[in-house]
């Protein structure tokens, strides 16, 4: 989905600090990249496309703006792949306890 209409659930992006603005105590690899921020909310603008600067209303009711990056963002985390090293643990400990 590349377009969003008013009231749709969207995610916006903001650059908070450029690399040269980062705190002095930050390690080199972190200092080489900007501090980025993502916020979700309901689109306030009538219509927008990915990449547009838009205004949203967040779940706390705050009005804020940034670059539209995702329309209807979903939670993508999951249960991963079966991890063989761990699957074996279950079988082993159950066998151990059987023999006690």
């Amino acid at each position: 989905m590349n377009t969003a209409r008013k009231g749709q659930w969207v995610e916006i992006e903001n650059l908070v600090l450029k690399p040269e603005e980062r705190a002095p105590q930050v390690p080199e690899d972190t200092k080489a990249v900007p501090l980025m921020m993502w916020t979700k909310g309901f689109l306030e603008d009538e219509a927008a496309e990915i990449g547009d600067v838009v205004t949203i209303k967040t779940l706390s009711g705050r009005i804020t703006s940034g670059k539209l990056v995702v329309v209807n963002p979903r939670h993508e985390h999951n249960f991963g792949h079966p991890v063989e090293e761990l699957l074996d643990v279950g079988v082993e400990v159950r066998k151990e306890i059987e023999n006690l």
Partner: protein
Amino acid sequence: MIDLSYQAVMGRKNEIMKKAVGLDYSVFEYGKLSFDYEGMMEKVAYSIPEMQKIQYETKVGNTSLFELKNINKLIKKYAQKGKGARIFIKDEAANASGSFKARRASISVYHAKKMGYKGVIAATSGNYGAAVASQAAQRGLKCIIVQEVFDSRKIGQPEILEKARKCEAFGAEVVQLTVGPELFYMFLRLLEETGYFNASLYTPFGIAGVETLGYEVANQMKDMEGRYPDVVIATHAGGGNLTGTARGLIKAGAEDTKVIGASVDLTGLHMASDRDFNRKSFTTGHTGFGVPFATWPDRSDVPRNAARVLRYMDRYVTVTQGDVFYVTEMLAQLEGIERGPAGNTSLAAAIALAKEMDEDKIIVVQETEYTGAGKHPMPQLTFAKQNGIEVRRGNSIENIPGKNVVIPENIGQITAKDFDMNRLRHSYIKNAVENKKLTEVTMEDVKFLAEDTKLAKEEVIEALKELKVAID
């Protein structure tokens, strides 16, 4: 127009904080570096009966304590004759929001409401976010959670992503940032913009809220076994879990119970490094928080941290990432409860210690936490592999943080490594004087440092002499 630059906002830190906590820490301060810790806890926080009432109203507390009978049986197999202490676990996942953090959030959010704040904000990538969100939902307050979650590729730990989901499920706004301590700057900006309460983990409310946990452990054990536990193990990161629990044990009368802190060993990984961020499998309960917070508690997001572990921790041990994943799997397969993993750090340590302790001794693991997509050994190990970490079976001692996760072959290999408490205590004194650039302290300060480190006054004086700090 208000100046929102990094320097300007950081420069307004003290005034923003004062408004956002509604608490003037300076009234408790004296000497060159000291403050009246007990006075602050007594005057600011709530009493045990008051907190029990507040927590009961919002589905917190009175969680079950049960013996891990199958695991205890297995421990005997790997212990010498006469050894193998019994482990009991406090099922804190049963709290609203799924972790002991609900205890901390319940008191903070109650207080925020009482003081007339319209909302609460907390900076956390852990279970505390969901806890604050859940409590705010129940008390009708707005909630914003600020998370450090992504590296510069916008790749985030599945565990933190799950916590963001849970916060949103309770109606909270989640502000997600890339790696870096400047999160604090955004946190201040949001506090200033909204005028909400800083539901910090480290206020007297946040710490006192955990006292009911220690209090319950002591009383439940007394009911079940007729005595207090010999040892209580708490996973240690920022220090609130251990401090609050220990204070609750003491308030219940279990003064002889030893309190042990346990962290996952992540030595060698830099916590603010964009590269290292996704090379660890534990985002909390590890030495990256445990050591700096023990040796300098006031690094937190409030002027004076109410979590001060050196006052209460009798021993500090570390376990490996592989150990914790192993015991998490074992807890599910032998005890029929799916919990953790991060909260099982103390369980891994308990198994190691139980093997060395006499069989009539009792160890309490004082927490569990909820588990789910992302926040579970399978996705976390899948993520580790995707980020170039080797996952294999082997002896626990082969674990190298950031390089591999070695899952032990049996519980015989799980050992708890002692962290030198004396080193922690001396680092604390060094930090206390160096952070304030002091060349001179008073005798009052010596007394405070002795209380805050559990060192003898003479040892504090000796340490100060070595640091070339004069005593007035």
